[in-house]
């Protein structure tokens, strides 16, 4: 059963990313790292991280990918009705101490929600954000303003340092002590950040994406082999230890028919 919602705002935060602010009929009650399935009637349904939840309002950051996200970008404006089911999946463990949040592009979405929860729990938060260019400045804003300290890197050097979120994370992890690292972005990037953290004995969690169909763990579409981890139900947040044993991580994806195909870079 869906919770109905009205789109309060649909604002571009980069060339192909839109922030949707939805007002739900009732409170969602998500924890950071959980996601929702968003149904656009007559079009389709996609998995999206809850980027922020305040009262009955939630934020979603949506990158244009294919059919449904493309339709949303082209058509879904203020006043539209969207239908939401969730919260789904298992989110991040909210730890105390000092946390490093590493986000690449739209991967900042679950980290914004996490940042608010960490701050609420009394943690100190440092953010390392990687963007393609300064055109995505607005995408980084919410995480940057929530964190105690934020560092931005862009591929072309048009904002912050020239480089990637991994470069920033590596520098920070070499300089100081962190109690926890959280990462969300491309899997190649997450893999590197996990290695950096684990090499220093720092606990790390990453949030993954796979093709999600049911979203409730009953169809197997989103599985990570060889451990049989369902991204929608056992994740999407997993700890670094688990992911180093999940061979598919960073390598394989299952398509709609369940065939193993290489992960898109």
């Amino acid at each position, binding site marked *: *059963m*869906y919770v*109905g919602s009205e789109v309060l705002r649909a604002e571009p935060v980069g060339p192909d990313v839109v922030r949707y602010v939805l007002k739900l009929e009732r409170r969602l009650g998500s924890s950071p790292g959980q996601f929702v*399935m968003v*149904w656009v*009637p*007559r079009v*389709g*349904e*996609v998995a999206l991280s809850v980027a922020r939840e305040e009262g009955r309002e939630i934020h979603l950051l949506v990158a244009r990918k294919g059919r*449904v996200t493309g339709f949303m970008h082209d058509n879904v404006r203020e006043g539209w*009705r969207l*239908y939401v*089911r969730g919260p789904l999946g298992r989110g991040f463990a909210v730890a105390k101490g000092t946390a490093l949040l590493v986000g690449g592009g739209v991967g900042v979405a679950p980290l914004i929600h996490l940042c608010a929860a960490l701050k609420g729990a009394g943690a100190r938060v440092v953010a390392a954000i990687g963007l393609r260019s300064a055109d995505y400045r607005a995408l980084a804003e919410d995480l940057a303003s929530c964190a105690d300290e934020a560092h931005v890197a862009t591929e072309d050097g048009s904002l912050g340092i020239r480089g990637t979120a991994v470069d920033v994370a590596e520098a920070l992890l070499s300089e100081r002590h962190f109690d926890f690292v959280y990462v969300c972005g491309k899997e190649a990037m997450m893999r590197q950040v996990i290695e950096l953290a684990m090499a220093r004995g720092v606990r790390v969690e990453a949030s993954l994406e796979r093709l999600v*169909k*049911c*979203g*409730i*763990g*009953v*169809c*197997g*579409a989103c*599985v*990570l*082999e*060889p*451990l*049989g*981890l*369902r991204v929608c*139900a056992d994740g999407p947040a997993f700890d670094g230890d688990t992911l180093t044993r999940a061979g598919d991580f960073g390598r394989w994806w*299952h*398509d*709609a*028919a*369940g*065939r193993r195909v290489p992960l898109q870079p």
Partner: protein
Amino acid sequence: MVRLVDLRVELAGLELRNPVVVASGPLGVSLGLMKRAEEAGAAAITLKTATLRPREGHPNPVVYELPYGLLNSMGLPNPGAEEMGRLISEAKAVMRVPLIASVAAQSPREAEEVAERLRGADALELNASCPHVRGLGAELMDDPQLVADIVSALRSFGRPVFVKLSAHGDWIGVASRALGAGASGLVAINTLKAMAIDVRAKCPVLGGVYGGLSGPAIHPVAVRVVYELHREFPDVPIIGVGGVETWVEAAELILAGATAVGVATALRRGFHVIGEIVEGLRAYVAGEGLASIRELVGAAHR
């Protein structure tokens, strides 16, 4: 103290360590998930239904959760028989519990081609009952002769053949023809034809429009179908499926005449439900002062 009880059952030649098997569907096409189900206590695993060619299934939304059950319209997504066969070979190397491969086909020839590729499995199940894919599945319920012909074709692989029935149509008639053609057992039931419309969006919810209802809502229907099948065919092993969430529903299907029970929707709560159902049955059998669960099969008829 719980008395030692024997939960083992025999199902058309398959030796099961207990009566709880995973029904076709929830584990998708994943060896990792099959292993998790085995570790959780499952006595056999039914694979996702395979078709000759790969199928992507229906577009999202593919499920709709209700307070009393689940609607799904997966549309039989699967990588095709060839790939499923590879998964079975891999699985046979590392798993100890029997594997039941599920086949969907429109003709005996096609069924043979699918089964040929799945012959590593310990048994075959003909899916004659998927309610949301046109031409594959439930339509077979209207054509008992075709079911019989497909069963004969599947028999040539020397494995037990089960026929998975729908609660729609003349399931007694279909079962009778299938058994006449050499089927070794029956599986009942698949999901019930259903659909949902969102009252505010004013359109069907499921991407495939039609779906199948599973979970607690269909349990009494499953009990009735299993009860009548057992009355009609008392010597035929039945896997009772439909709304098994705890040992109570499992026991009910066994009393109605099922030798084993299948679980699908209950797995949304986690794999631990398998172990809970097994342990619940163990305590039930002990509490009834019986030595073996086999004494309960069909006991409601006596």
